[in-house]
């Protein structure tokens, strides 16, 4: 019976012709837009995670402590909430690092009359300490230490980056929703046309006593098939764009975001898009039925 109903739905799809094609194209565009924003957003999210792992807060000290004082200071700071790792960097080590950075120009540092670099603490925050609120609280606590001269680094820029990612995701969702609404309307129109075309069939079905689900199911299936087809095309489009554009964009992504490579949508994202397309089509089919039937 299901095979028969599916056959009827296919027959209806052929009947809807160009309107059905328009509906499929619109579903493809809406899901491709949603998928593209999803892809960008998930890669940005990955970049945020990596940045968070690398973020450091530096506490510059007023004076270089003795070795006993520095050990006690490190212990005290390690006990603060939001602190994962603390490393003491003495003046000499700081100068050595500077020389390494300067490379062949390291002689410039040797020419200095005295070491101008302060001793410092390099702090790696915990996951909570790396959020905007956690980092703010941690910076305040560190700033309140009597040994602290200045607190550098921070996560504000990273949170702005995360905020940007959320905005991008919302924008993508908005564009996807507008296109999805247009797709639903088109599927509804396509199904309404089919309904008019298959009025005779439905009348015969009702007159001979076909169960109501048999009368109605082909319409729903027809809408769902349009949706599924649209979703498959959208995924194919995304895969194509990813394969073509990915290698070209990756160097830029590596430089700016620090990601080794762009990752494609995960299987559950793809499954979601397929389901979303099928549901979009189904909703169109149901709306058309409601519009055209008593």
């Amino acid at each position, binding site marked *: *019976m299901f095979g028969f109903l599916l056959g009827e739905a296919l027959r209806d799809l052929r009947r809807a012709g160009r309107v059905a094609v328009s509906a499929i194209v619109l579903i493809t565009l809406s899901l491709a837009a949603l998928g593209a924003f999803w892809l960008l957003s998930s890669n940005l999210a990955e970049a945020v995670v990596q940045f968070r792992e690398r973020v450091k807060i530096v506490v510059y000290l007023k004076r270089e402590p003795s070795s006993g004082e520095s050990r006690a200071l490190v212990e005290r700071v390690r006990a603060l909430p939001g602190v994962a790792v603390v490393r003491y960097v003495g003046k000499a080590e700081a100068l050595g690092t500077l020389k390494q950075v300067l490379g062949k120009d390291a002689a410039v540092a040797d020419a200095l009359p005295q070491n101008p670099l302060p001793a410092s603490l390099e702090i790696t925050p915990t996951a909570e300490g790396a959020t905007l609120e956690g980092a703010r609280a941690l910076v305040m606590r560190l700033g309140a230490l009597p040994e602290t001269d200045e607190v550098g680094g921070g996560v504000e820029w990273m949170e702005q980056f995360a905020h940007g990612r959320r905005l991008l995701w919302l924008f993508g969702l908005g564009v996807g929703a507008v296109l999805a609404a247009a797709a639903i309307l088109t599927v509804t129109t396509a199904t309404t046309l089919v309904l008019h075309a298959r009025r*005779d069939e439905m009348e*015969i079905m009702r007159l*001979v*006593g*076909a*169960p*109501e689900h048999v009368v109605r199911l082909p319409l729903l299936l027809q809408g769902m098939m349009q949706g599924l087809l649209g979703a498959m095309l959208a995924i194919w489009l995304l895969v194509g764009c990813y394969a073509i554009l990915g290698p070209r964009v990756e160097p830029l992504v590596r430089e700016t975001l620090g990601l080794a490579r762009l990752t494609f949508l995960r299987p559950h994202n793809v499954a979601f898009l397929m389901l979303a397309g099928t549901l979009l089509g189904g909703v169109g089919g149901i709306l058309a039925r409601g519009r055209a039937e008593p």
Partner: protein
Amino acid sequence: MIELHRVSKVYSVGPVKVPALSDVSFRVGKGEFVTLCGPSGAGKTTLLRLLYREEIPTEGEIEVLRQDVTALTRSQVAALRRSIGIVFQDAKLLPGRTVYENVAFVLRVLGTPRREITGRVFDALRAVGLSARAQAYPPQLSQGEAQRAALARAVARKPLLLIADEPTGNLDEGMAAEVIEIVRDIWAGGTTVLFATHQATLAAALKQRTLSLQNGRLLKDEG
């Protein structure tokens, strides 16, 4: 099989009330052949539509196959219709499907197992003398052939009751005779038949019990 008790049907067209049937009562027993005769507008089609619950009476009670048709739910209406074969004046064949597909379509939607369908379709087509035209499309059929295809579609399900609403209305005498002969054969097979016609001569020629309707009233029940 069928029982109507003081049935009336009034259509409302805006503020205007149009009576289609008034105080109609009769009974049809199992296996009977009953002709429903009356001029156009007498209420024949309304009466038939009440029997398969395409309409609901304004007043009165209707029982078909031991069921109060006015009280049926949607699914019960569908179940009732599965026991009734209906044929119309305009055949109502699906133009995009062959004769075979038209008959098979009904069996498919009613969930008949696939392996039984071909046999049952050809049995029905043989019964109406149309097996040679199984692959023809409705626009390629004569009116008589179209009506026979509609009969095949109605009887392929082996209904207990056949409702024929002016099946010979558009046919010439020869074609009408063929259709009547087929209806008689169906009746001879044990199916109860309710046959509507506006042709009094045809009703008389059928020599069966005849219910005469005029202006929505049952004038005579004879034969």
